[in-house]
């Protein structure tokens, strides 16, 4: 019997290889979270253990310190090329969530990302978003172009028929490639278990609390949980009645907050 995780994996590897064969100047957006770490593993699977692309991490300066430590150790261990994107101008001007959550996300994440894409002439950006995370992501294409002003024209997305992706990229625009768009949260954890992946320790319970979704320290709440193993997390997800991003404050800053953020180029 063919395994469901194999089915997901085969599809993701196909997407990664398609994108890489058409757009060599691409990069992997890595937040060190569970999803982008699974995506990174799939990239290595696609290229026989190699990661021929650089990683991009957008550092807002508000990340939980443990995340940065883990990031640097992981990069060193796996010999990866890491590009760190930061909006230094906004940071030195004192940008913070108090200025408004969406304004802060826009400056420290979106702007930093767009500047990094421009500086490194990135034409294809692999992003580990999933349909089941949130409404505007659920409407995404596997290969999703951004306009030359880096916005997402979600009201007029290109056709994407069968597994034919639009990878002809005009100069001055970049496309987002979403290799794990069709995965669900629980698939990610089943896959982490199957492949025995190293995962950021913040996901596991310490003193009765853990993070289900990771972001900036001021805007990310942990949840009450005793799940300190992957098995424990999987069991918890079957039972829960709360959504994955319930602890992410920017989602609730406004109605359709994520749609607004993402239409301007947020991940």
């Amino acid at each position, binding site marked *: 019997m063919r395994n*469901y995780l194999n089915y997901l994996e085969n599809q993701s590897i196909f997407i990664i290889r398609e994108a890489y064969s058409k757009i060599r100047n691409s990069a992997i957006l890595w937040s060190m979270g569970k999803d982008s770490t699974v995506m990174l593993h799939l990239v290595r699977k696609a290229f*026989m253990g190699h990661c021929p692309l650089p990683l991009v991490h957008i550092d807002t300066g508000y990340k939980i310190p443990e995340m940065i430590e883990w990031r640097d150790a992981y990069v060193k261990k796996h010999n990866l090329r890491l590009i760190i994107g930061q909006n230094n101008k906004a940071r030195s001007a004192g940008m913070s969530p108090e200025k408004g959550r969406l304004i802060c996300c826009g400056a420290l994440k979106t702007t930093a990302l767009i500047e990094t894409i421009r500086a490194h002439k990135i034409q294809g950006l692999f992003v580990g978003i999933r349909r089941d995370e949130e409404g505007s992501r659920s409407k995404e294409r596997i290969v999703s172009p951004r306009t030359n002003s880096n916005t997402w024209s979600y009201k007029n997305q290109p*056709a994407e028929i069968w597994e034919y992706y639009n990878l002809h990229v005009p100069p001055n625009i970049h496309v987002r490639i979403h290799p794990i768009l069709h995965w669900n949260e629980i698939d990610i954890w089943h896959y982490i278990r199957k492949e025995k992946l190293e995962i950021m320790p913040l996901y596991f319970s310490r003193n009765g609390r853990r993070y289900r979704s990771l972001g900036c320290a001021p805007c990310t709440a942990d949840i009450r949980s005793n799940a300190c193993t992957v098995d424990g997390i999987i069991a918890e997800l079957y039972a829960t009645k709360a959504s994955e991003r319930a602890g992410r404050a920017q989602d609730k800053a406004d109605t359709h907050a994520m749609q607004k953020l993402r239409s301007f180029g947020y991940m």
Partner: protein
Amino acid sequence: MATGTASHKATGDVEPFQVVIAGSVDHGKSTLLGRILLDCKQIPNDIIQNVRQLCTKQNLPIQPSFFLDAFKEEQEQNITIDTTCVCFKYAEKRFVFIDVPGHLDFLKNMTTGASKAELGLLLIDVNEGFRTQTLRHIKMLALLGLHEIIVAINKLDTVNYRKRDFIHLAEQVKMIIHKEGLRCDAIIPIVALTGENVFNVSSYMSWFHGKALIPTLATTAAKRARTCTNLPANFRMILQDIYFFDNIRRFAGRVISGRVKNGDRILFSPSGKMAKILKIERWTKKNAGIAQAGDSVAFQLEEQIFVERGEIVSAPDESPTTETILGAKIAWFGNAPFQAQTTYILKIGTAEVHCHIELLKADTQKLTNGSFANILIHCARPIAFDVAPDASSINRLVICSTHETVAAGVTSPYITRRKTTKKFLTSDYNIKQESGYITRSEHEKIHRGAVIWLTGLSGAGKSSLARALERSFHNQGRKVIALDADNLRADLCADLRFSPQDRAENVRRIAHVAKLFLNTGFIVIVACISPYSADRETARTIIGANDYFEIFVYCPLETCRQRDPKKLYARAAAGQIRDISGISAPYQIPRNPALRLDTSTQTISEEVERINRLIRLHTKNHELKLSRK
């Protein structure tokens, strides 16, 4: 919005069953899907809370469609703009429901969603009935290769659950679906908003004796899973890229159908190059040994050959068709209408070629968003593809302008139009054809002629069969002649070798000889490998499709190799000869033979009897026509 927190209990099962919910705008597609998610308690509490707040703000009761229509614009205008899908588990089977927009403006989004589906669930508002978009969606589902549609007639509450209204519409719908060549085994009256007849049978419609919607889908999914596993399929892989890591050259791609293993000989089309697989890899496994449908793999070859992205990999004796002209059925959804002078890009598998499109038949005068058409595609260079109705073959294509996909469709059978030599000679050398000889119908006073064209690998049993057939027809008192290509190569075709060009010329000459005999009322038996489908089509054109009977003499390559009557395989293995069909040169299997015989399982007398029956039918029709005269 799409949610799936507790969508499945175990991950040890197979691929999900993908269902697209199609139908006209406002007939309740997103509402049905939202209702399904709510009823199976799949939506997290905080998300329900969010939607409730949104609805209260707009003075609405809770709208199930808002769970799918996540965009602000969608919720404000109560319309689906773009497609999404949700995962859901019922009776241990994993489903993916695909929500698509109903409005014509968003047809490309509908096609995007529907192209992933295996089954169509068509929703029709009982008040509105059949709409233009309903028909367009049915046509689109048929074009995308779906076989079956299940219909849900919605909003029965608005007609007081009246049976009459339902029956009336159901009959009409069934007829239209059948007309488009699709099956329709279930039509169910429902109320999507409140969930009547969705999971459970509704007490308001006790006159309806069928199953509720979701159990019906589960039955269909189970039936599909059973039939799918029984289908044998040729090996097909699409080549995505060639990697050179760790000083090793690897060929990466995805298996579309069939299976392949270490040590297998493979053919690349359209380049026609052949190689042997050294090992199949799937990191972290250094040697996976085998790959099957769906797998993304990479393999190393025994010999170093140069091929590029865009090839189709197959077994040498089961290759796809390679052509520069192909037929197709398409749906157009580009923003701009079709233009005859424009160069488009044709994509099949991973291949991309520039092409021009010739319109054969369209349902509208101009090809615009929402039109369906039969076309001929003229490619700048050869492209490989399958012409078969089953989805496991590589028959799906898209057509793109520079940065936009404008049409999608499937390849369709098309007999290559070639410049015939006859035309060429008469015009260039001023040869006038003489007439006044005894005509074919005079010759056929005794019995009708026919050409039985036996094609197959060397050693498949063509010559033995030709001999037995000739004897059989002779004993019946028929005028018969056997043309064995091997014998003709000694004289008529002595100047020809085994290059594709020479093989084409060989077939052309034999076809003309056969035609001469046919015109004098003979039954002609041709035994000729004729490995290229394009050459066989030439023969069909020369002889005339009515008198040409293509018989695929099939035998597994291994058995042919063991029989090896001419010691060709042995000499090929020893490196003495090249260009052996099925080994070092392609053999393109006939897609639509009049008969397919398997000589490894049938006896010669059985085969002779089957061909006899076929020809008897052919001549009988002729005799009937004669007696009527």
